[in-house]
Structure formats: C-alpha cells, structure tokens
C-alpha cells in the first residue's frame, strides 16, 4: 500500500515545494489566473459572447466555491496540477516498464524521476506564471490519457472507453486547450488501432461539449493578429527552436521564471534535456515501449506546430482568417507538452540505465545491487530538473503570492449580488489587464472585476501586447456586445474612459442594459457627480455606481440551451464512465499495469 501511495506522496511534496505560499490564505492573482471570493456559477454560465474560454474551468471553480472557501479551491486546483502530473508520469513509466508486475526499488526511483521531471520544467513554470492553471490541468492529465489509450488494447471497448473518459476529466475541466493537448499527446498512439482512435475521438468530443457546442453557435471570430503576439519566442540564448526544445519559449517575458534563460542555467537545462532524449532513444531501442512511436510522433508534431508561428506566421494567419477553428494554434509553445512527457520518461529510463535495472537486461538471479556511486548519480539525476530551474520553487520565486481583496471590492460584490433586478455591470477603465496596487508585488492580472459580480459584465476583452521592437499588437476580443458598448461610449484610448458627455451617460448605459458601473482602478473617473448615477461604493481602488432605474432597459440573462446541453452531455458521460470503471473486471496482458489512469 505504501508503495502504491508513493506517486501521490511525491506529487504532494513537489506541489508544496513549487507552490509554497500560494497554498496559504488569500487568492493568487497573476495574468490569466483570476480567482475571486464566491465566484458566481450563474455569471459563469450566462457568460459572454464569443468563444466560451471560461467553461467549464470557471464553472467547476464556482461549483466548488459553494462548499469551500475560494482560497481552498484555488489551492486544490493548483496542487492538483502537480499531484496529478507527478503521479501520472510516475505510474505511466512504471506501468510501461513493469506492466502489472511488482515494481522494484530501482523502478520506483526511475518513476519518481520521471514524475518530478514532468512537472518541474520551464513549460509548467511559464504557464503557471502566465496564470493558465486550466491548461496545466490538462497537461497533468495527459499521462493518464496516454495510459488509458494504451490499456484500451487489453480491455473490452466499453471498459476501455470508460477508462479514457475518466482519464480525460482533468482536461475536460481545463477546457479547449487542455483537450487539444490530450488529443495531441495520446492521438498518435491511439492510431495504432482504428477502434481505439475512434473511441478516443468520441471521448474527446463528448467531454468537449460544454465549450464545443456553445462555440459552434456563437459565431466567434479569432483575430489573426494573435499569431504575431503569441508566437513562441526565445527565452534562452539558443533561439526559438532551442528554447522550445528545452520546453520554454513562452511568448510573454513576464512569465519566464526568475533566473531561467541566463546562459548558465540554460546550458544546464540543455544538458538535462540531452540526457533525457538519450534516455528515450536508449529505452526505445532496448525495450521498445508501446508508446515509443506514438509519443515520438506527438512530440515531433507538437514541436512543428509550436514553430509554425515563428517560421510561417503568414500562412498561419491566413489559416485562422479562413476558419477561426485554427485560432488555438496561435499560442505555439503550448504544443511542446508531449515533448515534456517524452523527456520525463527518457530521464526515468536513464535512471534504469544507470542502475542497470531494466527488466530485460537483468540476470535470472535478479538485478545487481547498485553501488553507492550509482545511487548518488540517480539522486542527482532525479533532482536535476529542480537544480536547473530553482525559479519554480516556493511560489515560483515569489511570483505566486496570495493577496486579500480590499474591503471596497467585497462591498461592491455584496451590493450587486443583493440586487435582484436584471442589468449588466460595465467595468472601467476600458482595459482588460490591471496592475493593482493592493496586490503587493506589482503584477499584471486580468481585471478581477470581470469575474467579481454575479451577473454579466461588459469589459474590454481586447489584448494589447508589446513587441520586441517597441510596438504594440492589439488582438481584438471576441465579445461583440462589449465591442458595441465601446463604440457607443466613445472610449478614449489614452485614458480608457468614456468620452461622451456625462449627462448622456445614464441614458446610454441604461439603453445598453447596464445597471452598474464598476471602476476597478485608481483613476480619475469623474462619475461621482453625474446625474443619473448613484454612488454605491467609493473606494480608492474600486468605485461602484448604480444607473438610476428609470433608465435601465434590461432583461434577465438566462443560461443558453447549448451551454446546458453541453454541460449535461459531458457530466452524464463522466458519471457513466466512473460507474463503469468502478465495476471490477479481470484484464489480460495489461501493458501499463493495473494501477494507471481510470482505475
């Protein structure tokens, strides 16, 4: 039992080392990571126009927030990334090497190295610092999905399908990018048998329905300008390709962990990656693991996709212009995720090589007892991902520090939720990102006011990105109603505040269905003395104004049929799968052991 719990224990330890203070009281705010107290499920489901990016991740957070405090929910989802990731890669490796047999100490050591390497790398650090916890949930679930796909070959179709559905739950929670990563990681391996590929595709479609069905009817467009903004970039001296090979290369400079990318740390990281790739090749030639071809194809394909925005931005932009469905390819670095899994398994294989402990190479009397020098080498190898990336430790070097919302923010939230009359909240200044003073260390974060209220918010979902040459790329947002609002209010690009006459504001806002105006930054808004706008909360960093009822023409927002259909389809599939997997059934010739995903 203790050995079965080892992957989970190691995952918990790694989560604690990486997150540290982020697991304490308060909420961590950073770039896309926006958690608010008492996130409203209704607001998430009624959502915004455009691509439903917050579904189902925010819906799950909102549902959990009904029974748990917000900071506990955030701590759980962040820790889940590390625990699931470590345990998934650990068990995938030991399952592939030893099948259902007993895993010796050398195998446990190799599994532990593989698990640690899978979550302690620039990809995880950079996505974490970019606040993309939902993407990382899918990343953490990928080894489980791959294991589930491999195990389908030894199970009845129903049972195998149910196992893959269970393994896909983290990706399903993460949303569209997470599902894409899982498909890329496990798809080529599933293609070994058409039946498995078909079942994987069916599982992916069913679990994608919460965001797939609404997106098909939303008519959302994707701005091709995002290709330039989100293309992979060099964050080491080795250029874009080298950076991606080392699992870095994120588009945003603010997401590079402290100390990473300097010549020395980058060179050390390159050394670890080289050893890992050599380990993969050695393992492939020596033992021919069942995922060897499939995962190699996944990693190569992912690397090509990651480089597309760098080497062929024009054709990629043209593709996105042709069909918005290609939009997810803009953020290229995302697709090195399968390479991360390949490298972590390769590093685990190197441990077996050092210990001369690969089952096929052992003598009839069992593996030789390793000497002290070899064991020390294994420990150093196991810790090498941490050694070359210390910037991920303890809240990513201070980048993930929890904060408390100021009283004015909570006051505004309570005031709006106490009002049952319909009407949206307009969030000003008309800018997506903030650098709130109250968050302690200066950090850019998506305006938390966009999630604070229990109703529809209108905010500027355009993204402005600085480029290396000092220019700015504006990636147009997807919320059509928000865009119409900006046009009506004649937003000043300098101040991001409305330019129309204050006297006209209440009537205009009311006609657009706006009941409240939230000013979520310390700016000179000039709204306090406007007739037709009543101050509800006036703090230095949050001011809330109510549009007089006589002006407001609003109808209650309702959850759309596509959202309900998608959510029920996905939920029903998961419930069925859990019950199916829970029924015990004998298996034969299981190639990845009996303790992997879905069981």
């Amino acid at each position, binding site marked *: 039992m203790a050995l079965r719990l080892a992957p989970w224990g190691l995952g918990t330890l790694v989560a604690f080392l990486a997150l540290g203070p982020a697991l304490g009281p308060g909420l961590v705010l950073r*770039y896309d990571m926006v958690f608010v107290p008492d996130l409203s499920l209704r607001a998430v489901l009624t959502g915004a126009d455009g691509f439903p990016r917050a579904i189902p991740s925010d819906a799950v957070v909102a549902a959990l927030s009904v029974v748990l405090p917000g900071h506990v929910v955030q701590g759980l989802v962040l820790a889940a990334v590390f625990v699931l990731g470590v345990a998934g890669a650990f068990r995938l490796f030991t399952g592939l090497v030893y099948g259902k047999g007993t895993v010796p*100490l050398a195998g446990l050591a190799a599994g532990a190295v593989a698990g640690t390497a899978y979550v302690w790398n620039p990809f995880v650090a950079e996505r974490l610092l970019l606040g993309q916890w939902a993407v990382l949930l899918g990343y953490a679930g990928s080894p489980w999905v791959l294991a589930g796909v491999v195990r389908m070959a030894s199970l009845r179709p129903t049972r195998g399908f149910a196992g893959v559905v269970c393994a896909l739950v983290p990706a399903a929670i993460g949303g569209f990018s997470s599902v894409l990563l899982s498909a890329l990681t496990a798809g080529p391996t599933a293609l070994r048998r058409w039946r498995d590929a078909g079942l994987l595709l069916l599982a992916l479609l069913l679990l994608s329905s919460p965001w797939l069905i609404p997106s098909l009817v939303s008519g959302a467009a994707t701005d091709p300008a995002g290709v330039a*903004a989100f293309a992979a*970039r*060099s*964050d*080491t*001296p080795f*250029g874009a390709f080298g950076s991606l090979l080392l699992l870095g290369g*994120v*588009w*945003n*400079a*603010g997401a*590079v962990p402290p*100390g*990473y*990318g*300097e*010549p*020395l*740390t*980058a060179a*050390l990281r390159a050394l670890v990656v080289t050893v890992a790739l050599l380990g993969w090749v050695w393992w492939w030639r020596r033992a021919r693991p069942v995922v060897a071809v499939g995962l190699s194809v996944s990693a190569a394909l992912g690397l090509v996709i990651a480089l597309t925005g760098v080497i062929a931005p024009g054709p990629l932009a043209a593709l996105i212009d042709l069909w918005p469905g290609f939009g997810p390819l803009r953020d290229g670095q995302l697709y090195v995720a399968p390479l991360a899994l390949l490298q972590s398994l390769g590093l685990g294989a190197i441990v077996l090589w050092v210990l001369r402990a690969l089952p096929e190479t052992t003598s009839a009397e069992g593996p030789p007892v390793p000497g*002290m020098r070899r*064991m*020390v*080498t*294994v*420990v*150093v190898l*196991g*810790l*090498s991902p*941490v*050694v*070359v990336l*210390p910037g991920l430790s303890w809240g990513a070097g201070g980048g993930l520090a929890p904060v408390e919302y100021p009283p004015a923010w909570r006051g505004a939230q309570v005031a709006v939720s106490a009002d049952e009359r319909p009407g949206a909240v307009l969030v000003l*200044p*008309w*800018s*997506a*990102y*903030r*650098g709130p003073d109250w968050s302690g260390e200066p950090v*850019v974060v998506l305006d938390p006011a966009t999630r604070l209220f229990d109703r529809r918010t209108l905010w500027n979902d355009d*993204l*402005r*990105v*600085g*480029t*290396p040459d000092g220019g*700015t790329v504006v990636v147009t947002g997807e919320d059509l109603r928000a865009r119409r609002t900006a046009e009506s209010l004649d937003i000043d*690009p300098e*101040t*991001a*505040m409305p330019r129309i006459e204050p006297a006209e504001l209440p009537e205009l806002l009311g006609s657009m269905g706006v009941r409240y105006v939230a000013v979520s*930054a*310390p*700016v000179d808004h000039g709204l306090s003395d406007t007739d037709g706008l009543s101050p509800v909360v006036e703090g230095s960093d949050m001011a809330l104004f109510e549009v007089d009822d006589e002006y407001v023409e609003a109808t209650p927002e309702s959850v759309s049929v596509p959202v309900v259909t998608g959510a029920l389809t996905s939920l029903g599939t998961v419930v069925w799968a859990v019950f199916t997997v829970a029924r015990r059934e004998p298996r034969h010739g299981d190639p990845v052991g009996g303790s992997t995903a879905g069981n």
Partner: protein
Amino acid sequence: MIKVIAACVIGAALAGGATVVATNLATESTATAEPVNETLYNYGDR
C-alpha cells in the same frame, strides 16, 4: 537500506549545492536572451 539513505543524503547535498551555485551565477551573469513580448496595461495612469 542504510546505503540507500546515505546515497540520498549525499545526492541531495550535491544537488542542493549545485542549485545554490547555479542560482548565484545566474543572477550575476548578463542576460543575452532576445527580448520577448509583455502584456501591457493600457489605461492612462500606468
């Protein structure tokens, strides 16, 4: 088992020392990486 524990202690000490050295040297060296994109704030006072 004593051998395994001893190997873990020695290995962890070596790795820990390497981490400290790597961190110190990295912070003292000059960055040569290509500048990359940054998300901007875009309202007036920042």
